[in-house]
């Protein structure tokens, strides 16, 4: 479903700040797979996600989603095929619009936008039904501006918005990192449920090794712009965070310097 072929990304090429963020990354995510991506700061995991989403253009290599090569597509065009949830809860929703209007906006992601009323048909009932599944009472606040919701509520709404319409690919960029542990667990559970129920192909970038191993069906680890580790099935099930660290040391012959990977 998602295919990255030999992707190279260099930030600030030709300057003293030159950073080679991705050095020949190739990755295939089959249809219906839930992949988790882990790595320390600057490993390239978020860059890889941004390459898929179109926020970052690779210097070399191709991006293919659903059989369509889209290396040079702008972000808004890719939105018809893939949807995203951001790390910052403020980013995924539009705070000046009501909950219902946000849903209307997301609803139109995979369809042409016309001069018909944005909020129409059974949209109100549909949004209320989806929201009631959260158990947060948001179905009664459809006409409230999203800016009035808490970060966790906004992230849950973002997630529901991301899976409206004919979504097949879901990209999650550390979408629980800005939430408190309890809310993060709630949003993560919701993510697992939605991805499973809708049979989505999903890529989740995370800082937490435990989260990466206990979510989805496959985990890859980025280090210095390359994929250094890739596990799924029984091999992955047998892994704990400690094993992952051992493995990492052996592969790289160096200690993991980033505490956030251990603490997450």
């Amino acid at each position, binding site marked *: 479903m998602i295919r990255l072929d030999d992707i190279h990304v260099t930030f600030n090429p030709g300057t003293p700040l030159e950073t080679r963020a991705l050095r020949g990354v190739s990755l295939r995510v089959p249809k219906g797979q839930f992949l988790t991506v882990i790595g320390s700061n600057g490993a390239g995991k978020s860059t890889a996600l941004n390459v898929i989403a179109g926020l970052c253009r690779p210097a070399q290599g191709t991006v293919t989603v659903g059989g369509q090569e889209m290396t040079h597509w702008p972000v808004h065009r890719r939105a018809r095929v893939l949807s995203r949830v951001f790390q910052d809860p403020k980013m*995924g929703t*539009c705070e000046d619009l009501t909950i219902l209007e946000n849903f*209307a*906006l997301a609803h*139109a992601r995979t369809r042409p*936008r016309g001069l018909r009323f944005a909020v129409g048909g059974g949209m109100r009932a549909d949004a209320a039904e989806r929201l009631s599944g959260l158990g947060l009472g948001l179905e009664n606040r459809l006409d409230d501006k999203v800016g009035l919701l808490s970060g966790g509520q*906004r992230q849950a709404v973002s997630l529901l918005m991301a899976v409206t319409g004919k979504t097949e690919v879901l990209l999650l960029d550390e979408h629980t990192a800005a939430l408190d542990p*309890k*809310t993060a667990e709630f949003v993560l559970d919701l993510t697992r449920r939605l991805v499973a129920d809708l049979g989505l192909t999903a890529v989740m970038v995370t800082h937490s090794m435990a989260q990466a191993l206990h979510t989805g069906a496959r985990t890859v680890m980025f280090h210095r712009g390359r994929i250094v580790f890739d596990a799924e099935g029984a091999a992955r099930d047998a892994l704990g965070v400690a094993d992952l660290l051992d493995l990492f040391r052996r592969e790289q012959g160096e200690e993991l310097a980033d505490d956030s990977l251990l603490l997450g």
Partner: protein
Amino acid sequence: MSLYQLFGSLETGFIFGIVALGAYLTFKILDFPDLTVEGSFPLGAAVAATLIVGAGLNPWVATLAGGLAGFCAGFVTAWLNVRFRILHILAGILVAISLYSLNLRIMGGPNKPLLNVETVFTAFEGFGVKSYIINPIVLGVFALAVKLALDLLLATGFGMAMRAAGANPAMAEANGVNVGRMKLIGVGIANFLTAIAGALFAQIFGAADAYMGIGVIIVGLASVIVGMSVLPSRTIMLATAACIGGAILYRLAVAAALNADFIGLQASDVQLVTAVLVAVALIVQQSGGRVLRAAKRGGRGNDPA
């Protein structure tokens, strides 16, 4: 203030209400401070006046043509910003400056009198009502129609996309909105409205003038700021009403300031009065906003994010 002055304030108030609706679209909806209007206001006037006087065109068609010319001007500004990443304010100034020359070309001189020709207001003469009473009514209906049209547009799927493009571009793009295109069309529409207002202004006051655009941006912005700080503006429909209300309030305030003989102001001081009014309104809004934000922060202390 005499009744005549009151109706005069309503007349110009409604015209600048249309300008204010355009300013609302750019400044508030699209978050695109657009200075093109300084040029597109006289552009609409110049095109309409030249077509009416020179080509003998129907005044309604000429007014619409003026509006379309304004759309093009706004489109160019947004294009400079979207395509070449020129700062929006600078792009607007560049287009406004170039329009100054263009307007002189269009009119073949610094102004174009509209005396003894048919205007859009000619059709409403002869109802036995004095023109200083009927004209504000006609303009009021017109401004209201523009307001309702804008309300409807912003409630469509297209309008929702435009609102998101201004409020949260990254989120809009992730939801398939072509943010660049929204700016092109939105700034175009705002200048279409401004140019229509310019064309109407010329027809009411009997001439198009190359200098009539000076300060239009501030008047439009003043109307939006005054309106939204005095009147309720929670929803789009209320906010657009507040824009027109703000334009009238602003006109009345200026008239009152110039009328108060004891201050010693004269007509030529109008720009100074405007600038002071806008500055005061902005300062009040700022400090008011600070109080509101502090209150909100206090109320959301348990927010997990």
